[in-house]
């Protein structure tokens, strides 16, 4: 791809000339062009004698001997071999594009066009057209300087490339042409094949780099334009030239542009956040305690986050706290700080990091369509990392399921090996997934993974890397026969050591899994997971129902038993009541009897007293009679009346 990219400068230089001559371009572009005087002037000199009609310029572009394209056109194979047919095709497309205006050149070009080189051309034209608002004089000064230098190198390059050209005889021309035709066909059938060719182009570029021995090539210049165009109209690039976008992003976003490009690629909404964020930061979070606890435990060895009162920890705290309030279901989950950290390390501002985090987490398509400036909403897919961090962590379990299924399918030997040693991905991959590899792996690679996540999606990219790392270390892993040796190997950064710090290779390996790990494969696995999940849920429910049934049967029998016992008790109770009643009656009777007897006793007592009285009376009378008889005899006058009573009593007593 780089090879074709390198065409651009030569071609757009031509185009600029073209523009000047055929003033059917927007004024803006002219203004642009006139700013960039130096290199063009020089180039025009180099071009002296060219026919300036559009068509002939075209031919010049595609001509193998054009001096202009030579300094930059490393892939001589591509552009130099265009036959009349191709250039006619190009002419046709190009002229139609011209008619439809400068802006549409860009948007119409890539998928339609079958020639990579030509695509590059119109791409860069569009970039030229769209950059100027955003990219100031400074950028052009930079460009000019570079161009000037490249022009100086041109003569040298010319010679070297002419030498290369000699090597391409007619036969090879023909062969390559056929190859190109095949590529064209493939491209028209499936635009993704362009990616496969990227490697070949890269090799060509590298060869030329080696030949030119470090001379300043306009490549970086071209790159700047590409990134500029992303900043100006990402949605068009994503729609029209996703392959080129992926290739560029996979090669790595320049560090100094990362904060801005990341923001744009994920469609973060800084304006909305400017209103929202300051308020969120002020609020109290129920997760405050655990967030604070985790601050010193997030990248404790990284300078930026070391200091307890340092800026790094402060920013981490603010962002995590704000997010825990913004998304109260997720709140704070351990692992999130490791997702936020790398963004801050790449000098994304605090509020922008928050905006990006919100995007990375969001699941709903709707939220992504909320930007009215985007022509059609569906272009930004949700990254949907949120479900990894919710209290049930369903997303994490899904990813672990997908990972396992991919290991089984793509690395069956390793799958067996893991099974034999009871290694399960929860043990090693949860950390990878929840921290986007930042927990274990070198940061430069983590940043590259982030680049790709933003342009291609989070889950997909993370899974590709997870499989790729296992694949790279397959032999190492298979050789280890102890559970702890395997797991220790998987948990450290040792997995990455096999790359000897070669991040390019690590990225390339992961991306080579495009055909076996893609959205379709993941969707299929997701459905399987959901089926399994719901069938597990169903069987769980069935078990529960069975359990409840048996419980209710048991309870019924207990109930019956209790009922029976109750009836029995009821009877006993009745009997008791009857018994009680009879006893009461009996007692009443006894009480009555007692009462009557008491009365009788009382009566008897009274009668007794009465009888005693009567008796005493009788005795008195008897005594009196006796006494009267003595008085009438000789004993009268010895006892008084009282004495007689007493005598009577003593008499009774003796009785």
């Amino acid at each position, binding site marked *: 791809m780089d090879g074709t990219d390198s065409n651009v400068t030569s071609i757009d230089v031509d185009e600029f000339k073209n523009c000047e001559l055929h003033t059917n371009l927007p004024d803006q572009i002219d203004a642009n062009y006139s700013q960039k005087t130096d290199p063009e002037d020089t180039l025009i000199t180099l071009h002296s004698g060219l026919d300036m009609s559009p068509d002939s310029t075209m031919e010049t572009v595609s001509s193998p001997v054009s001096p202009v394209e030579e300094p930059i056109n490393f892939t001589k194979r591509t552009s130099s071999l265009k036959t009349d047919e191709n250039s006619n095709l190009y002419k046709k497309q190009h002229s139609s594009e011209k008619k439809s205006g400068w802006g549409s050149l860009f948007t119409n070009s890539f998928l339609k066009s079958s020639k990579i080189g030509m695509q590059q051309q119109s791409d860069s034209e569009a970039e030229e057209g769209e950059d100027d608002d955003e990219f100031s004089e400074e950028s052009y000064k930079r460009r000019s300087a570079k161009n000037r230098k490249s022009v100086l190198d041109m003569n040298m390059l010319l010679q070297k490339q002419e030498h290369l050209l000699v090597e391409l005889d007619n036969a090879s021309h023909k062969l390559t042409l056929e190859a190109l035709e095949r590529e064209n066909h493939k491209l028209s059938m499936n635009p993704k094949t362009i990616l496969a060719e990227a490697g070949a182009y890269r090799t060509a570029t590298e060869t030329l780099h080696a030949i030119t021995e470090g001379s300043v090539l306009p490549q970086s210049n071209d790159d700047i334009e590409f990134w500029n165009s992303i900043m100006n109209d990402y949605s068009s690039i994503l729609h029209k030239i996703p392959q080129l976008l992926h290739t560029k992003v996979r090669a790595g976003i320049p560090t100094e542009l990362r904060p801005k490009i990341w923001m744009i690629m994920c469609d973060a909404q800084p304006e909305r956040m400017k209103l929202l964020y300051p308020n969120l930061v002020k609020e109290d979070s129920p997760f405050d*305690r*655990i967030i604070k*606890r*985790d601050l*010193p*435990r*997030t*990248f*404790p*060895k990284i300078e930026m986050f*070391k200091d307890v009162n340092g800026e790094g920890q402060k920013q981490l705290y603010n962002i995590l706290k704000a997010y825990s309030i913004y998304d109260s279901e997720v709140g704070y*989950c*351990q*692992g999130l*700080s*490791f997702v936020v950290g790398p963004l801050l390390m790449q000098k994304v501002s605090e509020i922008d990091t928050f905006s990006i985090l919100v995007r990375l987490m969001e699941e709903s398509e709707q939220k992504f369509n909320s930007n009215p400036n985007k022509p059609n909403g569906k272009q930004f897919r949700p990254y949907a990392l949120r479900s990894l961090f*919710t*209290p*049930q*962590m369903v997303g*994490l*379990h899904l990813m672990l399921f997908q990972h396992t299924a991919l290991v089984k399918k793509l690395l069956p030997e390793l799958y067996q090996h893991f099974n034999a040693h009871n290694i399960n991905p*929860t*043990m090693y991959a*949860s*950390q990878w997934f*929840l*921290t986007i590899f930042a*927990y274990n792996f070198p940061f430069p690679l983590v940043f590259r993974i982030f680049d790709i996540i933003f342009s291609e999606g989070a889950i997909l990219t993370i899974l590709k890397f997870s499989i790729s790392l296992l694949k790279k270390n397959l032999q190492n892993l298979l050789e280890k026969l102890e*559970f*702890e040796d395997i*797991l220790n190997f998987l*948990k450290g950064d040792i997995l990455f050591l096999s790359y000897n710090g070669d991040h390019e290779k690590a990225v390339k390996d992961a991306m080579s899994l495009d055909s076996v790990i893609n959205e379709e494969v993941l969707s299929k696995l997701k459905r399987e997971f959901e089926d399994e999940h719901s069938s597990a849920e169903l069987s769980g429910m069935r078990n529960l129902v069975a359990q409840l049934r048996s419980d209710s049967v048991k309870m019924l029998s207990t109930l019956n038993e209790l009922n029976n016992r109750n009836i029995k008790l009821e009877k006993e109770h009745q009997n008791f009541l009857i018994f009680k009643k009879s006893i009461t009656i009996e007692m009443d009777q006894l009480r009555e009897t007692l009462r009557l007897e008491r009365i009788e006793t009382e009566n008897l007592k009274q009668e007794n007293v009465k009888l005693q009285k009567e008796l005493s009376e009788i005795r008195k009378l008897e005594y009196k009679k006796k006494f009267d008889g003595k008085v009438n005899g000789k004993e009268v006058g010895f006892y008084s009346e009282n004495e007689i009573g007493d005598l009577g009593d003593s008499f009774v007593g003796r009785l």
Partner: protein
Amino acid sequence: MGVIQQIKLLIIGESGAGKSSILLRFIDDSFSHSFITTIGIDFKIKTVEIDGKLIKLQIWDTAGQERFRNITNAYYRGAMGIFIVYDVTDRKSFESLNEWKRNVEKLSTKDVTVILIGNKCDMESDRKISIEEGRAKANEFNCNFFETSSKNNIGIEEAFLTMAKDIYYRTKASEEDAIQLKKENVITLSNEKSTKTSGCC
């Protein structure tokens, strides 16, 4: 002399109680202020010697945050011994002990050995939980109790060795199928519990 037995242990407790620090002290005999949060589950290996026999301890360290339980719960069943850790300077970590214990009862095997650990006992001025309170909790749980400090290396070796011995004798006894031995074992264990409770500071 080869390893004759492998013992699986699990460390649980509130986030920030110092589980990973305890493990690092036991494994490496070191301490670090710059500790990284445990995500999900981690594990370490150490071989110890009991009665001249080598025993390999496979120790699983867990993330403390509640939502990680749906990952860590799977590790209770295989564990022969479980350390429940709290931070003596943090009452909340102490208050959550009952819940951790319930989790153990629910998920682990019946004969699992549990040891309660009150960590950070070097931080006397910040102490919120007295040693008596910790001991009472251990009695309630019917388990051994240690106060430890990873920083000052207090009680950690003892805690791990007590755990290892307990499990070693228990499994050995059941293996030899000697009821008598089992009884003796119970006696030693209960002795240990009363005598070996370790304090510090």
